[in-house]
């Protein structure tokens, strides 16, 4: 079972890199937001530094939201999801593999470039470190919760907007604690409580996410 689990992850990661759809969509989106922003609000460093952590987190959230609907949709459209669902892997594990692949392809690249972009927005070193840490700890929640929404809306005609409605409220705590962690680091306060909270949310969604998403998938497909 483990072998299949990893094969599925490997396939999804490979497809994402070869097709370039997920990786580049989220990454280029992330970069574009951060590039366009100074053009839009003007290049004053003080303003940029003030809004920097917020902009970075919002951009990450949006990038995740945009790639979510591909999590099951591509496989649904070409019939591969049918074959996956009737295969030997329990649906919960299947969802977990999809979530991990999504995180690796759509979110990890973005965490890798985040420090550079943060630097360009004039964030101080402490803030950048806290940002990277907070992203690493907080973003798995985004994929996990997102999977529930993606599973419920797969194959649905107006799926996209429903998906956003569904997962957005659940993303807000991550956003708020994530930004709070960076702000705390910039203000030389302790970031630990915020990171612990983010970690707690991630663990909680690690337990509930796959269960709910599997139920959703079974539902949408039958």
């Amino acid at each position, binding site marked *: 079972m483990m*072998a*299949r689990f990893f*094969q*599925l992850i490997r*396939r999804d990661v*490979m*497809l994402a890199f*070869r*097709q370039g759809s997920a990786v580049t969509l989220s990454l280029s989106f992330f970069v574009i937001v951060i590039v366009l922003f100074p053009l839009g609000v003007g290049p004053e460093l003080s303003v940029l530094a003030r809004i920097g952590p917020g902009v970075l987190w919002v951009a990450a959230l949006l990038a995740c939201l945009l790639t979510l609907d591909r999590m099951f949709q591509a496989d649904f*459209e*070409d*019939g*591969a999801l*049918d*074959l*996956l*669902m*009737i*295969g*030997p*892997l329990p649906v919960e594990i299947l969802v977990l593999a999809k979530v991990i692949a999504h995180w690796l392809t759509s979110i990890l690249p973005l965490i890798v470039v985040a420090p550079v972009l943060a630097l360009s927005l004039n964030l101080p070193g402490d803030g950048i470190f806290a940002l990277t840490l907070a992203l690493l700890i907080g973003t798995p929640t985004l994929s996990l919760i997102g999977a529930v929404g993606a599973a419920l809306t797969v194959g649905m005609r107006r799926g996209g907007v429903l998906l956003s409605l569904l997962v957005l409220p659940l993303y807000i705590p991550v956003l708020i604690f994530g930004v709070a962690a960076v702000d705390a680091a910039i203000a030389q306060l302790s970031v630990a409580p915020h990171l612990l909270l983010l970690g707690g949310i991630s663990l909680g969604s690690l337990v509930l996410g796959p269960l709910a998403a599997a139920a959703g998938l079974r539902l949408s*497909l*039958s």
Partner: protein
Amino acid sequence: MSFSVHNLACQRADQIIFDNVSFSLAPGEAIWVRGRNGAGKSSLLRICARLLKPLEGSISWQGENILDDPENYVGAYQYLGHQDALKSAMTVEENIKFWADFHGEADVSSALAEFDLIPLRNVSADILSQGQKKRVNLARLAASPASLWILDEPLSALDRHYISQFRTRLSRHLATGGMAIYATHQDLELNDSRSLELDADT
């Protein structure tokens, strides 16, 4: 090993497509599901493949009801549907290999050889012709062993040569104790396969 279906009914969008469908399969047997366009052949096959819930009725595999407990059934059957499940970013061989590994203990290269896919193995799946895509899917089926094959229009887009190739393969599957349910509008000309008419009910 046996597969049997009892009193199945199927509803789609407020309409009863068919009801009272019963049949059973013993090792070596095949059933040809026939019927007009829209009679519910694909729906029946999807129900057998656990992709659709029947409105009522029961399906059992080795005496166990698979609607309640599919444990033993999973892995014992393979499904071939209208959609080809091919990823255009992977080569033919990668596509087949993924599914074969996913189902376990597979023999990819002989399956490739069987449907003359060796020359195409490193070709990306999206430039294949319609019939070549079908052959890739048949090779996926042949690559990993399964007792029951559930085939929805396996012949469409195949040329005569590959239809007979496939007939040979299917006969071998049956001869080695396999079972098959298939729906097609073309005659597969398989000896001793029973047929199930879906029109009769409607």
